């Protein structure tokens, strides 16, 4: 289903690296293929392929955009050992971004 652009897909999140925005077990929505037609922006929360583990999908936030449309991803959790992100796996190419995560305000 992630091969079909312009479709929304529910995602269950495992882990606390995006806390407090997204908590372990939360369900969020991904706009699949969003970045095929739209440039990534700082602040976007994205679903992407783990650069070092192609079978793993991760959710992180874009904190910087570098040349060549490569992005630096970070977790929202302020604890540096609560998240594995671009500090560990480096910059991520735009092509590896599977979609944008829609964040709804917590009640």
């Amino acid at each position, binding site marked *: *289903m*992630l091969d079909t652009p312009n479709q*929304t*897909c*529910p*995602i*269950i*999140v*495992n*882990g*606390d*690296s*995006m*806390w*407090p925005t*997204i*908590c*372990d077990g939360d*369900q969020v*929505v991904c706009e699949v293929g969003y970045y095929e037609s739209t440039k990534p922006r700082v602040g976007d929360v994205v*679903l992407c392929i*783990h650069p070092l583990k192609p079978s*793993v*999908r*991760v*959710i*992180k936030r874009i904190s910087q955009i570098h040349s060549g449309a490569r992005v630096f991803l970070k*977790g929202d*959790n*302020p*604890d540096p*050992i*609560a*998240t*594995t992100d671009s500090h*560990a796996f480096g910059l991520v190419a735009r092509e590896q971004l599977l979609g944008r995560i829609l964040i709804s305000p917590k009640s």
Partner: protein
Amino acid sequence: MTYSIEPIEAEAHCDGPCGVYDPASARIAAEAVQSMTTKMLALECPDTTNSASMAAYLNTMGRYATIKEDEAQKCKDELLILWSDFFKPNHLDSIPNLHDIFWNAAKLCSACKVEVSSAHAQELIDACEEIHNIFWAAKGLEVPWIRAS
């Protein structure tokens, strides 16, 4: 909102070599501190004019003190690992006094090194029990507090 497609999973965690934590290590060290403290307080001083007895006494007391020192440091190390690595900012929501709990426990480790105090040794055991309880509660498990000694 409902979807006609099943949700898929995505990861948002740490890939680091972490994940195996247990406050039992700190508890065992704290029990050793308490045991050595008890032994030091119970050790009777021999006739100070008997050199052989004094040598044995000083040797035993020295060994007790060394073990107490080492185990108190080990306890502090194990507590600090739990504090800095296992517990995350989100745990402060349910344990707002988390930092005070660990700060006080670490200070008790230091006090047990400096002193020969059965009161502080017991307070260290109590602190480890409190940490045992908050640790397993954070993991959503009920694990009884059991002492080895």
